[in-house]
């Protein structure tokens, strides 16, 4: 009699749903437990077509390169040449984006000013007004004119080197902001003329103008108050970049600042950050086309921001037609945000290095996005400034390296012809050929 044993059935590996991933399910559980959406800082975390999807071609027989370490590659840029009596001249085409005092500590703002000034570039205020730390340590300071008008006054307007009229930002185009009460210290409350400890809403629309015709008059008023000296920037979030750029130029902007969805914010709903707006890569071509169609390319300067991390990103943005770029999140990382040295504390907050984004809670272990005196004391603005300067220098050197390899003696001489795309999406968005071809989607009707 033969032994009869049941055949062993192989088990399949437990299969996770792509649609209902662990990450998605964790958010469902969090929402079910709290009844409120998730609020966080930073920009879009999802993978979107980006500068990584472009490559430079470099030089060969048909193009000849410039010698690294020997032949000059100019990096300076002048912003505000259209109407302003005193345009801004920067040594490098990489500026520091607007980040508010309130969301950032005073020492962090000081460090941004120190680092930017040492590298020969500008820094930008943010919602909440101009601080002495920032003005005192910034050789070139751009003063943001925001819907909230927190701290807005004519003296600071005149102390600024340029004025940035903020219509929107890439992380939340069409949205306002909220600085939660836990970050409202006595000083922040006083600057914003509100009680300590209450949530401070930053409006999504300006209170005294609506539409491009009004904007034109608003810009004229600011110019009249400041004697037509200061360059006027108009900052827009990436939504309809062709039309918004056109309208900003029509309204009298000297400079258009265009912020894509990877651009950071101090705090807003995660669903907003991840689902509203255009990737930075998709914004540049339409904006440049608008300027070209108006005959204003290089006359009204274009600053691009949102996910700039490396000199390659800088070079690609400039090659696509930008005059300069702006960095925010990368600057914070350079200062020490999300640094592995604080891993133990990030874990206590339920997160990990690189993923920490609850900047609005004011418990930043690195002491940068907080108003807590003990946490702020961890951050050294002099060392932070030194690190930012170094980082800006590296970005510049990297961009120069690429430009020389493309045979360009000025970063602004980089052009779309120097680029190719690795993906169909990037080729379509940037209007540069798919690698190894002379075609991009839509070219010649195909």
């Amino acid at each position, binding site marked *: 009699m033969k032994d009869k044993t049941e055949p062993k059935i192989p088990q399949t590996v437990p299969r996770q749903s792509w649609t209902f991933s662990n990450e998605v399910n964790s958010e469902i559980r969090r929402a079910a437990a709290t009844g409120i959406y998730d609020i966080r800082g930073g920009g879009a975390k999802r993978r979107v077509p980006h500068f990584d999807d472009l490559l430079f071609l470099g030089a060969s027989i048909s193009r000849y390169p410039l010698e690294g370490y020997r032949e000059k590659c100019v990096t300076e840029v002048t912003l505000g040449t259209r109407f302003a009596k005193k345009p801004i001249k920067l040594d490098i085409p990489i500026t520091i984006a607007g980040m508010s005092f309130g969301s950032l500590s005073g020492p962090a703002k000081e460090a941004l000013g120190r680092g930017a000034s040492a590298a020969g570039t500008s820094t930008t205020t943010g919602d909440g007004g101009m601080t002495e730390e920032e003005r005192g340590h910034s050789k070139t300071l751009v003063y943001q004119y925001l819907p909230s008008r927190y701290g807005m006054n004519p003296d600071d307007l005149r102390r600024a080197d340029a004025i940035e009229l903020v219509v929107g930002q890439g992380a939340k185009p069409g949205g306002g902001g909220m600085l939660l009460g836990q970050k409202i210290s006595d000083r922040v409350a006083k600057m914003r003329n509100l009680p300590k400890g209450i949530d401070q809403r930053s409006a999504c629309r300006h*209170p005294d103008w609506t539409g491009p015709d009004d904007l034109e008059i*608003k810009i004229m*008023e600011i110019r009249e*108050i400041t004697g037509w000296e200061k360059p006027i920037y108009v900052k827009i979030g990436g939504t309809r970049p062709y039309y918004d750029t056109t309208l900003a130029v029509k309204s009298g902007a000297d400079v258009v600042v265009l912020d894509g969805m990877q651009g950071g914010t101090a705090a807003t709903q995660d669903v907003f950050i991840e689902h509203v707006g255009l990737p930075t890569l998709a914004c540049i071509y339409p904006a440049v086309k608008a300027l070209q169609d108006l005959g204003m390319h290089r006359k009204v300067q274009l600053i691009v921001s949102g996910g700039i991390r490396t000199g390659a990103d800088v070079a690609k943005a400039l090659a696509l037609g930008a005059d300069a770029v702006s960095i925010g999140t990368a600057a914070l990382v350079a200062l020490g945000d999300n640094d592995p040295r604080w891993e133990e504390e990030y874990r206590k907050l339920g997160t990990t290095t690189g993923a920490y984004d609850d900047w609005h809670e004011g418990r930043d272990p690195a002491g940068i996005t907080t108003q807590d005196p003990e946490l702020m004391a961890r951050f050294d603005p002099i060392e932070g400034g030194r690190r930012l300067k170094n980082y800006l220098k590296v970005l510049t050197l990297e961009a120069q390296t690429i430009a020389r390899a493309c045979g360009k003696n000025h970063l602004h001489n980089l052009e779309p012809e120097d680029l190719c795309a690795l993906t169909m999406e990037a080729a379509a968005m940037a209007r540069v050929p798919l690698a190894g071809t002379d075609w991009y989607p839509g070219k010649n009707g195909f």
Partner: protein
Amino acid sequence: MQTFDLAAEGLRALNATLQKQNGTTNQTAWEVVNPKGSHALAVGLDAPIDVTVKGSTGYYCAGMNKQATIRIHGSAGPGVAENMMSGTVIIEGDASQYAGATGHGGLLVIKGNAASRCGISMKGIDIVVQGNIGHMSAFMAQSGNLVVCGDAGDALGDSLYEARIFVRGKVKSLGADCIEKEMRPEHLEILRDLLDRAGFDANPEEFRRYGSARKLYNFDVDNASAY
């Protein structure tokens, strides 16, 4: 009295001239003729001078004013006295939208009516209106006083912070988190002073006071339906 003909000399010359004044010379009284609804008239002034505009103005007249007294012998376009820091602005006629928007200080007197969003996001300015005001007035108003001798439109004081609102007439509706509050003696005193400074003969006892219920000061999901 210095007379400035805007039609002949232009806006830039007017503002540059007025902005140069420091109040220490005998040129403290100015009259602007032929304004013809021009925008950005007498903006960014910072001296204790007296400017009279003989006619109606466009957008943003007296914007960001400090110290100066500016009288408009006509009506004012949108954003009159926006972001005013100090001084006084007096409008003999009506004011369009956003009058006194985001004002940080000073006194804005409107002898006619004010359109919508009067005192929007005000941050310390005092506004006294002899007539009526339009909808969404004092939206997100942070501090200061808005006095209305006539009626107020829809959604008065929506999302109000610490600003005080006094209305003598009817209020069509109150905005989110805005409620009627008790008029105590100290409020009557504030109101009496504002009416006196504006030159309006009105009895403070006839007004009602409105302010923030302070229920939306810190985000609470249970209040989400209020937005």
